[in-house]
């Protein structure tokens, strides 16, 4: 089957989008007080680290950074079977914090539901916000992002791939059509 691939966001485009999102997060939360970034493995954790760097450049302060693995919170365990379990690493208390969940691609919303369940097992954040690089639509749950890099209308049989290099920097976003 022939597949066609199109780059929909290049390295520079991703950089600009992340810089804008960093500013929006700071604007909405009026600074970095009580703020925490939690990336969803794998992909969102690298983007969360990028956002942390940008916020540090803008505000001169490091915000807390964590990563959450949602494998154990999936709702398709009985149909999909086992997937490798990653490590949840949130080395700070999240009680009372404004937690920004970060993911690369927002699709059905089920991953975000699982990530929120994972957060509630760890603590009680003051609020949870959602930042995504790509929103491709097709939500199956009442979930919407607070910060979006780019909205990309897709059909369900297309795939979105966010490519990272060895130093975990995002390089480009491609759309794969069947």
């Amino acid at each position, binding site marked *: 089957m022939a597949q066609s691939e199109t780059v929909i966001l290049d390295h520079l485009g991703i950089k600009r989008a992340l810089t804008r999102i960093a500013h929006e997060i700071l604007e909405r939360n009026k600074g970095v007080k009580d703020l925490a970034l939690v990336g969803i493995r794998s992909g969102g954790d690298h983007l969360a680290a990028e956002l942390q760097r940008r916020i540090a450049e803008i505000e001169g302060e490091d915000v807390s950074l964590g990563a959450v693995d949602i494998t154990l919170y999936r709702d398709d365990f009985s149909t999909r079977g086992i997937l490798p379990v990653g490590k949840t690493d949130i080395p700070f208390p999240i009680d009372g914090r404004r937690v920004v969940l970060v993911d690369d691609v927002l699709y059905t919303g089920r991953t975000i539901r699982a990530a929120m369940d994972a957060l509630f097992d*760890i603590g009680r954040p003051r609020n949870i916000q959602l930042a995504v690089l790509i929103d491709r639509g097709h939500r199956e749950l009442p979930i919407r992002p607070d910060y979006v890099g780019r909205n990309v209308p897709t059909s369900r049989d297309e795939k979105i791939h966010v490519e990272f290099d060895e130093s975990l920097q995002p390089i480009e976003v491609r759309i794969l059509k069947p």
Partner: protein
Amino acid sequence: MVFRHKHILGIEHLSRDDIQTILDTAENFREINSREIKKVPTLRGKTIINLFYEASTRTRTSFEIAGKRLSADTINISASGSSVSKGETLEDTARNLEAMHPDIIVMRHAASGAPHYLAERIGCSVINAGDGAHEHPSQALLDLLTIRQHKKTFEGLTVAIVGDIAHSRVARSNLYALTRMGAKVRLAGPGTMIPPGIERLGAEVYTDIREAIRDADVVMMLRIQLERQGKTLLPTLREYARFYGLNQENLKLAKGDAIVMHPGPMNRGVEISSYVADGNQNVILEQVENGVAVRMALLYLVAGGESKE
């Protein structure tokens, strides 16, 4: 991810990759055990029966906690006080349990091969929690996880296992697991406690504990089973302690950073001196802690079946 085992009956059937997968999964489960809310919803709705035909505190509790932390319903059945003591055969017990549709049965039995017998006759997964003098896979895996945390790799390590090798399922499972991962295994004990031909499984055999311990990275002491072998294979416990017990004197022969392990329950003053058991080289309670994570990994891996990705 590939893990194609419906049952965990012994280390003998696990490949190097399988062991790696189990240890990596367990390593990531450890974080859950340090949370305030030590529970994830993964195995919600699954039923796990702990079927224990032999006394056990550590292993049974560890499996029970592992199941509960994954949100499975765990039920314990022990031989005393159940239909087993009323004369029911293993096959009938198996059929009756199956009628209740469990997803996993964790089984301990005094007869070698009993979990294999059950696995052939029942539709659900079976995990061996120790069968006779045969295997105790979850114990070996938790030992490996503990060793890996301290030594990073198995390649080139020397592990001395000392005690009643012949009757030890812990020794057998560890021998399979450690040699498969590239470690060198030395077995030591009185001649009456070394099974003939064990060298063929890749071990070096010693009758002098001092030679076995010399320059070892890991010293694993086995429990002398006072209630079973104590009387026939040993002249006296004091003599055993003198020739095969680990103490601060002979431990000095091992590498300076060697770790001391024991699967429990310990006979202090027999196979291990209290000084060593409480000393700074002992990792015995870390083994227990890792036991929960390893058993969570095993339950997760067999409950999920094969990934369709």
